[in-house]
């Protein structure tokens, strides 16, 4: 059902945690639906130098969070804003159809963190 890459990111999620004094931070989803993602980013000179997440959710939610943090590190704000959940899924080798909705949260949480950053630095 899940690809090896999904399972790898689920079993060994990259960048779990929080960033003290994060440049931007966003939480999306809600516990009622069974998925919450919190994303912290650290931005230096317009580039995302660190990203950490916490996720309450299923295997697909954890893996996409993990993969998404990996993908945005080193990207500029503009590049990161252009990241889609489709790209994250592709990078994970795909997800079962019923799980696609879980992957949307990764894109949304990054956007939320970036917006938070932009608001603070506007």
């Amino acid at each position: 059902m899940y690809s090896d890459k999904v399972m790898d990111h689920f079993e060994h999620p990259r960048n779990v945690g929080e960033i003290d004094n994060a440049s931007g931070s966003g939480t999306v989803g809600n516990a009622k639906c069974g998925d919450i993602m919190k994303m912290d980013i650290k931005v230096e000179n317009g580039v995302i130098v660190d990203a950490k997440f916490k996720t309450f959710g299923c295997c697909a939610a954890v893996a996409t969070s993990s993969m998404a943090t990996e993908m945005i590190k080193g990207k500029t704000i503009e590049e990161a804003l252009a990241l889609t959940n489709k790209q994250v899924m592709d990078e994970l080798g795909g997800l079962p159809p019923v799980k696609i909705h879980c992957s949307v949260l990764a894109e949304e949480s990054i956007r939320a963190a970036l917006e938070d950053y932009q608001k603070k630095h506007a």
Partner: protein
Amino acid sequence: MNHKMIYLDNAATTAVRPEVLDAMLPWFSAHYGNPSSIHAAGREAKIAVETARKQVAAAIGALPQEIYFTGCGSESDNWAIRGLADVAKGRHIITSAIEHHAVLHTCEYLEKKGYEVTYLPVDEYGFVSPQAVKDAIRGDTILITVMTANNEIGTVEPIAEIGAIAKEAGIPFHTDAVQAVGAIPVDVNAMNVDMLSMSAHKLGGPKGVGALYVRKGLRISPFIFGGAQEHNRRAGTENLASIVGMGKAIEIAAAELEEHGKRLTKLRDKLIGGVLKTIPDVRLNGHPTQRLPNNFNMCFRYIEGESLLMRLDLAGVEGSSGSACTSGSLDPSHVLLAIGLPHEIAHGSLRLTLGLDTTQEDIDYVLSKLPGIVQVLRDMSPLYHMDKAKENA
């Protein structure tokens, strides 16, 4: 994987017992006659089917001619309800909020066809109140259907009391005993039930065969029309080998019921007790004692069930969860919601259902692994973080 898998999902399905498979094997390629055929091969097949019918009947205190073989427990449920509704005069059905989907979705279908259904609520343990059943009865009530034991939280319902009420009111009473038969004592007369659903793969038999008990004299429409099989009430060439397997499985399960039940109850209570002792923020679902001997169901706050399951799976333990994500739906288990759990807690449920081959060591292993896995997931959970921050504030 560096150790054997520990299968704790016996409420989902069980392995076919070796003795049962042995009993089935001759009926595939060696003795494969159609029980409706009149030649020698057909006649011996017929005898095999009738022997199995007796075995099933004996296990639930019924007469052989009251047993009809079906394709699965779901078919038995669908047939009982729709077969009765099809011939009954009234249009009102009473059931509970925690039935299996085979009952609930059938009732919902009937609602679309103009029937009215009362879904009785349950208390925090999942009990249906007999008094509530009594109060729900109307002049046009045609059927009461309440499950014998719940498949998720293991709660054993007061069926005999509900049966007595149904009998007094003269309303046919169906019970979905798919999880109960072979696990706890079941007797159609003591329980006053008129129809009872069973499924072989929950009790050491093969998948794809079930049975419906229909009390002598109760008229229901056939569900599958066609040949004259099953006294003209359920068409389709008999599922010979599987029916033989169901008979054998139920016979063994009934014989071992007491001994097996005692052993499992001990293991179950050890598992529940162990978790309660070692992991904070957990909740036992269902009643502490009025539950199936093999059923463990707990909620682990702050974490989501599928993640918990997958981590257990990686650690070699196979279980199930009532989280939305495990079913591909958006809502968590209707049973957990019915006993009053908020969504976010219901998402974090874990069901472990013990089986024939579950050992003391298996339970110890689970108890050794579970706390660490729960902690990893909680450390990863934003909810845990927020709540703990609040507590410390």
